[in-house]
């Protein structure tokens, strides 16, 4: 069992700023002013089981690549512990970690052919081999792989990745997609314990990205090894991973299965980050109609309100059910907003027809902020049309307006 354990991991970059100049310090009231260090990753805790496909996702600068590079050993761990199979890896050099990495830039050696690029790691590393000496004692010796062994492995990888015809080409003679396949080949051929993929598809065009995406998933199913994949693209994360780690500002926001992440986001950031189009957020006030009732009155910013049955909703935090009015944020996905006869009134700004379905961009009267409504038909509505919307209680998300955390109960 290969288990990767990240315990209280921090990455702190010391400030390059030498602080204020001597003159500023002389005249500054705050004499203790010191340049602040940059914390790229903060208290990162994660357990990765053998064979899992874990995706780190988040906006750029959220620390996902830094975390991956710390796992790889390309970046020092400022604080915390990293274990692989119970072995502390903090001070183990990248070359001895038995991990393989696929880079965003492919990082293929430009002077070597695809074959030699794939074979590179095999030629460098030694394997341990058991043998019995003259006295019949079993011993272990290290040796390089033979040419034939290397060839067999390279051919195996080339077969899987369908790059047999490219093996004699240099990286400069291959397209981005082909280079990325070779880079994958270089990673899989060594049979490492963990695969690390740092935005491997970012440099490819949209079509190729989709096909490579499914190929990487197939590769994972075939190899059954642990994959750690970094991306800023939530679609990639949702379609590939079986465990997703959503990060923001160096902090883990939520770790969950793709479907749970979509259905039960723990805070407004995760809710907004996962799913296309982005979730709509309405500023509303909620108030229990009276203490004994199960009806929750939700008032929108235009003054209109709807009555919701709390029994149909996910369980809401008690403190919001005290009969007082509370300001909260209502999260609604575009596809969960229904056009109906009774409800809240919005006005259509534009409609985007996307083949079989349409995105309607609508706003409150005298407001400019647009909300997106997705309908499963081709819309013929014109701009300015009044829309009446509603929603089902079980599809809503509610967030505290201050802490931005979900106030609804998570997955049972």
């Amino acid at each position, binding site marked *: 069992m290969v288990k990767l354990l990240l315990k209280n991991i921090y990455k702190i970059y010391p400030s390059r700023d030498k602080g204020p100049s001597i003159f500023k310090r002389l005249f500054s009231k705050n004499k203790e002013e010191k340049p602040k260090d940059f914390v790229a990753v903060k208290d990162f805790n994660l357990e990765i089981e053998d064979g899992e496909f874990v995706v780190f996702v988040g906006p750029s600068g959220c620390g996902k690549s830094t975390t991956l590079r710390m796992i790889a050993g*390309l970046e020092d761990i400022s604080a915390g512990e990293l274990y692989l199979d119970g072995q502390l890896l903090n001070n183990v*050099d990248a*070359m001895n970690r038995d991990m393989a*990495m696929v*880079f965003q*830039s492919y*990082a293929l*050696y430009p002077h070597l052919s695809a074959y030699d690029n794939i074979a*590179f790691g095999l030629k460098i590393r030694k394997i341990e081999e058991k043998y019995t000496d003259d006295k019949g004692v079993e011993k272990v010796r290290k040796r390089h792989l033979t040419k034939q062994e290397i060839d067999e492995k390279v051919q195996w990888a080339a077969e899987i990745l369908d790059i047999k015809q490219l093996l004699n080409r240099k990286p400069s003679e291959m397209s981005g997609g082909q280079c990325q396949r070779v880079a994958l080949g270089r990673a899989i051929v060594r049979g490492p314990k963990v695969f690390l993929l740092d935005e491997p598809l970012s440099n490819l065009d949209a079509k190729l990205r989709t096909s490579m995406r499914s190929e990487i998933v197939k590769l994972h199913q075939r190899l059954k090894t642990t994959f750690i994949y970094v991306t800023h693209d939530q679609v990639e994360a949702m379609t590939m991973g079986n465990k997703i780690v959503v990060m923001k500002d160096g902090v883990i926001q939520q770790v969950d299965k793709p479907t749970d992440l979509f259905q039960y986001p723990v805070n407004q950031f995760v809710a907004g980050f996962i799913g296309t189009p982005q979730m709509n957020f309405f500023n509303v006030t909620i108030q229990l109609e009276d203490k004994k009732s199960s009806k929750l009155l939700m008032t929108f910013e235009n003054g209109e309100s709807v009555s919701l049955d709390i029994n149909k909703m996910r369980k809401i935090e008690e403190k919001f059910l005290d009969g007082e009015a509370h300001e909260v944020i209502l999260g609604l996905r575009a596809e969960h907003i229904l056009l109906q006869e009774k409800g809240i009134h919005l006005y259509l700004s534009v409609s985007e027809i996307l083949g079989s379905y349409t995105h309607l961009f609508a706003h409150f009267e005298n407001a400019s902020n647009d909300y997106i409504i997705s309908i499963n038909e081709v819309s013929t509505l014109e701009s300015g049309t009044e829309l009446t919307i509603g929603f089902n209680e079980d599809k809503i998300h509610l967030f505290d307006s201050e802490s931005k955390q979900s106030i609804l109960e998570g997955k049972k």
Partner: protein
Amino acid sequence: MFQIAIIIFAVLLFIFGVVVFVDVLLAKKNNTKYHTKQVITAFLFILPAAIFAFFFIALPILYSLGYAFTDTGLFEPDGGKFIGFENFKAAFEEIKNGGTLAIAIKNTAIFVVLVVPLQITVALLLALFCNVKYKGRTIFKVCFFAPVVISLAVTSYLWLILLDPSSDGLMNTILMSFGLPQQEFLRNPDTTMIWIVIVSAWQGAGYQMLIFSSALSGIRKDLYEAARMDGCNAWKRFWKVTLPGLKPTLLYILITVFIGACRIMVQPMLMVGSYDPKAITISYFMYGQAYDFPYLVGYSSAIALLMTIFTGTITFLQRKLLGEKRK
């Protein structure tokens, strides 16, 4: 002689004009985005440099080429007679008989064989040393580059003082303070060329270091990271990533250092002088033949031509053997 120069200049100017004309025609025919005016403007930009190149590069080469087949002396530049390949014959004869030219060739060969690997290795090591980030590396860079900026005459003289063979010389003082015997340095025929090699490598390495430095910073960092993930230690990373990445630069430096080394003259001239067989080199010999007694400009030109052919051939072979295969 002046008239000949003018005629050659006129001919080259005419060729230049024809090239411009053909280019304008081609531009029109191929319907490229360039207009006639642009093409002519482009060539006009080249013209000043071309005139300079003509008077200071092309013309001397052409003259020298012409002199090689005459018996021109230094004081009768127009008085030389055409004597065919006599100068070349004389040169080969001198080599065969072990004359000064043969010694000069031997000395130059020793110099080239020693200085090329030494200077390149030193330059590469210095560049690697300056490529690592640490405080004060700019100071090192400046120190290593300083000899390049200082005149050859000055550095040669400086070393001459350092290598003073008397017991008062700096090097000898140091050696003797450690109880080591006094050395003759440049005066010892066995070590003269070696010291010239050391001085030249010290003087030249800074420039190549700078070229290596820029090439080193051009090697992508992710390749080193990939190599680390593939299990390479620092030594292997140098051989598998750094060196292949430096290959084009290495070839360029190899060729320029080789050509420069073949022309070695100032150091032997200033540090040993008087056409001493200990340190005479081809260029120095050539110079001596033309500008000192016996003032044989024709003979000197013939040797220069032979040397050009030789260095040209070697450079061509280096490119063929070590260069990237063209697609």
